[in-house]
């Protein structure tokens, strides 16, 4: 009976909507109540943000402010709040022009000051912060900046020498030169050593002649090439007197100052894409384009005026590795930016889950908040823990990179490959879960979460295919193992020191306190890594003893290689979490991080490999699962504080994160 009355009341309100009820009268219609009014913060969210952003918090806010305050960033009011988001309904050409205008605006305000002309840790960290902030606004903006500064600018910096730096870096920083990076070809992507573009040297004129000999040699996906870039760095085989000296990099002008395409260069568009339509990806053919001898980026190898090949690195493998340097920083940058997309999606979907209700448990009771469903907690809260873990790992990776030494290059390569693959895959998984958690609202472009999937999918391919990167990680671990064995030395570096200790033992009974002790969790992650590395070595060696080549043996053991790559990654990420936690004084921040840390590791322990390889018994597996559920409900009251700590300004979230009823009201149509 009450229920019928309630329905009638709702219907009446709907019918009589021309005379809205006074704000103080009770109303059977649903109303929006901001989560801030019902949830409280048990720790200092500002301090937490400082900790997980790690650096340049003020710089970040300044950049957010620049974007928030400009019409170019397409501010729109929804539900009384202003949101900035590109108009993805614009045509491809319009989106590209808007990306470019946004870059010009930021440039004019000094946002890129020193990005290429200053040296040192401080500016490199500032740059990473700038990239992370730009990625939160739009992946096209991030990518176009990344291609220009990290790939083109990085190529000049790392592969060029003094006169290249003097000639190109300042102009790049102030955009009088717009650079792109022509590495990938239609026929060759991750296998850069296989590119088919050929460059020869003409000693009569002192010029290099760059040629695209066949269709599969056309440069493909070259960001900036279709509309804006004036220069590119071309990766090409270098043929000197009939000898192929391998892949080298050359500067080629592709457009003049008026934007006309240069002679002997042909450019075509890559067309509409599933995301990143604000980036003008193009294809380039070179018809025996001539460039001066100085345009060879000659930090590792040079050609003398009379046409002799000179290189400081004898080994062609090492020479090639040196050419890949610009990709390493790109990988660091991509990995770190992906974490911020997870933050955006989680902040939106958690805020929505704290204001959207569905189904009553009993008649006449209000419907239940989405986040009060244990199942909804189980979907979102572990992803929050993963995002915290990835944040600490990203900060570690950035520090590793900016404090690089010639000796640490190998470690940076392995860690950046593994983190880039793990973060970008995890990000896609988080985006999908968050999209579904927002239901139909997740499908609206203005609500960001669903749209981000299309925009960020490419990250698993950028700067190295994730699968290939993970194989490289396993191969590198294999090499570490063999080196340690051969020289009969202890493992050192990459966090593999645990291999020198006795094998940890998992207790047969797992209590709640064991499951939350960082020692146990670390042991469990190390155990898997150690065992999988041992197995991998055994299997590869077995294949080899049966007559297979090393390369073939790796290919055949791909499943173990994949599991090992993940085991390394999970353990390495966990380690950065523990280290971050250790720096904190005992307080509410440390408490909450401890809980998140346990949750992160327990999620890793839920991976099929733990039962498959028998590290956990079936009973232990059940205990892990029970503990995860328990932690999820413990963290439920902190959900809002945890996502607020991500530090994403309201304007960069979306209408469903705030007053979504008002944003969708008839008056706002």
């Amino acid at each position: 009976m009450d229920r019928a009355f309630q329905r009638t009341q709702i219907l009446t309100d709907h019918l009589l909507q021309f005379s809205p009820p006074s704000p103080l009268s009770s109303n059977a219609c649903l109303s929006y109540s901001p989560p801030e009014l019902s949830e409280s913060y048990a720790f200092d969210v500002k301090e937490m943000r400082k900790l997980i952003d790690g650096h340049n918090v003020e710089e970040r806010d300044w950049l957010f402010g620049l974007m928030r305050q400009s019409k170019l960033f397409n501010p729109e009011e929804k539900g009384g709040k202003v949101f900035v988001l590109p108009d993805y309904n614009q045509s491809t050409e319009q989106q590209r022009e808007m990306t470019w205008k946004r870059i010009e605006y930021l440039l004019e305000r000094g946002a890129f000051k020193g990005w290429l002309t200053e040296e040192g840790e401080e500016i490199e960290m500032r740059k990473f912060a700038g990239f992370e902030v730009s990625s939160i606004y739009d992946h096209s903006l991030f990518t176009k900046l990344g291609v220009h500064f990290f790939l083109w600018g990085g190529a000049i910096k790392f592969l060029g020498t003094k006169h290249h730096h003097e000639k190109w870096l300042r102009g790049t920083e102030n955009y009088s030169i717009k650079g792109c990076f022509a590495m990938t070809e239609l026929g060759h992507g991750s296998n850069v050593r296989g590119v088919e573009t050929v460059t020869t040297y003409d000693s009569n004129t002192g010029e290099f002649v760059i040629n695209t000999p066949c269709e599969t040699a056309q440069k493909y996906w070259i960001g900036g090439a279709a509309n804006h870039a004036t220069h590119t760095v071309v990766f090409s085989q270098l043929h000197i007197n009939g000898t192929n000296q391998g892949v080298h990099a050359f500067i080629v002008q592709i457009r003049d100052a008026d934007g006309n395409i240069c002679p002997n260069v042909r450019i075509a568009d890559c067309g509409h894409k599933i995301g990143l339509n604000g980036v003008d990806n193009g294809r380039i053919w070179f018809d025996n384009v001539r460039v001066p001898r100085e345009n060879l980026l000659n930090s590792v190898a040079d050609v003398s005026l009379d046409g002799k090949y000179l290189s400081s690195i004898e080994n062609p493998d090492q020479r090639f590795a040196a050419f890949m340097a610009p990709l390493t920083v790109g990988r660091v940058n991509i990995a770190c930016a992906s974490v911020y997309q997870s933050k955006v999606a989680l902040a939106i979907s958690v805020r929505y889950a704290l204001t959207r209700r569905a189904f009553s448990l009993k008649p006449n009771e209000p419907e239940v908040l989405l986040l009060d469903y244990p199942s909804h907690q189980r979907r979102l809260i572990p992803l929050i823990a993963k995002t915290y873990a990835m944040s600490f790992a990203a900060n570690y990776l950035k520090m590793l990179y900016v404090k690089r030494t010639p000796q640490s290059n190998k470690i940076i390569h392995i860690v950046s490959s593994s983190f880039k693959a793990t973060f970008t895959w995890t990000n896609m998984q988080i985006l999908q879960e968050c999209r579904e958690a927002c239901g139909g609202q997740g499908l609206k472009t203005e609500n960001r979460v669903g749209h981000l999937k299309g925009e960020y999918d490419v990250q698993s391919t950028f700067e190295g295919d994730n699968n290939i990167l993970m194989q490289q990680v396993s191969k590198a671990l294999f090499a570490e193992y063999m080196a340690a064995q051969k020289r009969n030395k202890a493992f050192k570096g990459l966090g593999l020191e645990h291999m020198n200790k006795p094998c940890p033992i998992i207790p047969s009974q797992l209590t709640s306190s064991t499951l939350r002790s960082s020692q146990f969790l670390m042991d469990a992650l190390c155990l898997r890594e150690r065992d999988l590395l041992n197995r991998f070595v055994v299997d590869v060696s077995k294949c080899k003893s049966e007559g297979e080549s090393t390369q073939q043996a790796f290919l055949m053991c791909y499943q173990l290689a994949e599991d090992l790559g993940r085991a390394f990654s999970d353990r390495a990420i966990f380690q950065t979490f523990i280290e971050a936690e250790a720096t904190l004084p005992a307080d509410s921040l440390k408490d909450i991080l401890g809980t998140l840390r346990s949750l992160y590791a327990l999620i890793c322990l839920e991976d099929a490999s733990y039962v498959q390889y028998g590290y956990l018994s079936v009973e232990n597996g059940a205990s892990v699962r029970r503990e995860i559920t328990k932690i999820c409900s413990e963290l439920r009251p902190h959900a809002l504080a945890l996502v607020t700590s991500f530090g994403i300004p309201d304007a960069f979230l979306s209408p469903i994160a705030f007053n979504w009823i008002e944003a969708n009201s008839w008056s706002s149509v």
Partner: protein
Amino acid sequence: MASSVSSQHDQVLVEVKSFARVLTLNRPKQLNALSLHMISRLLELFLAYEEDPNVKLVILKGKGRAFCTGGDVAAVVHDLRTGGWRAGANHFMKGYTLNYLMATYSKPQVSLLNGIVMGGGNGASMHGRFRVATENSLFAMPETAVGLFPDVGASYFLSRLPGFFGEYVGLTGARLDGAEMLACGLATHFVPSAKLPMLEAALCAIDSGDPEIISSIIGRYSEQPSLKEQSVYNRLDVIDRCFSQKTVEEILSALEREVVDRRDRWISATIQTLKRASPTSLKISLRSIRVGRFQGVGPCLVREYRMVCHVLRGEFSNDFLEGYRAILLDKDKNPKWEPSKLELVTDTKVDRYFSKVNNEDGEDLKLPVRSKFKLPSYVVAKL
């Protein structure tokens, strides 16, 4: 403060007009500067009206040629000297609480800004739903010139102005007329002062608190004023370019770059104004507006309260007392700021103004809980 109870009571005049309440700030000799008593009285009235179903609308105006010129700085300084920083802070605590109540008020407040509206006067009007400017309106947030910073929730409402206009207005204390206030959104309507009595009568006659209806009534008396040719609002491009810079130093050098090749009196005057202001004030003001851009109105006020406590405690600088002396007391207009230069106010010094007051009697501003009311959506969006 030796005024009798009855004259104190007259400082805020109350008229009951069916569903409307008309409150008049009545200290015309002091240009309606808000005394502690006035703040308390307004708080009391606003709280009572929120509970009263017979009140649907609150109209606020000022007697004489000012709407309100802000807080009573002389009284603050007096209390500060006699009762310590805590006594001075009490003025601000009450004032900010009133600002918060107005910002989150469940009923529409219409402020008739027919005259000067400065500092705390803006705190008493800008947070309300409707702000009506006239040809007599004169807006300013002049705090940086007296060693303070734009407070009363200004870091909320200034940071939400178009582009970087808020930084410009907050740092320079620039004066805006009614047309400019409307153009930038500080005012919601512009009504010629001659029509104000009619507007007031019309508003007093309605029986609804529906903002749409109130807006359309004010709209009936509104005009679209044109900006003066010399208006700063026509210089938004320069303002955006310069006041978007990261630091006060960079803002100044951006302004100086603008006049390298061409003379521009307005830019030169702006540079002079910034150079005359307290360096500490400029730096904490810029930070405050920048941070405020990403905070709700409550957190903005809590932060501003922390800042003002640090200012009153004079731990890092005594610019507030010096500004009061030079501008309001001795009127020599020659304050000796300390630190005297922008570069001496380091980031770490600025940071301290934003930290929690470390003192047993120092505590954060406790804002009234507003959840028990069903707040209108335009209020919810401010939280």
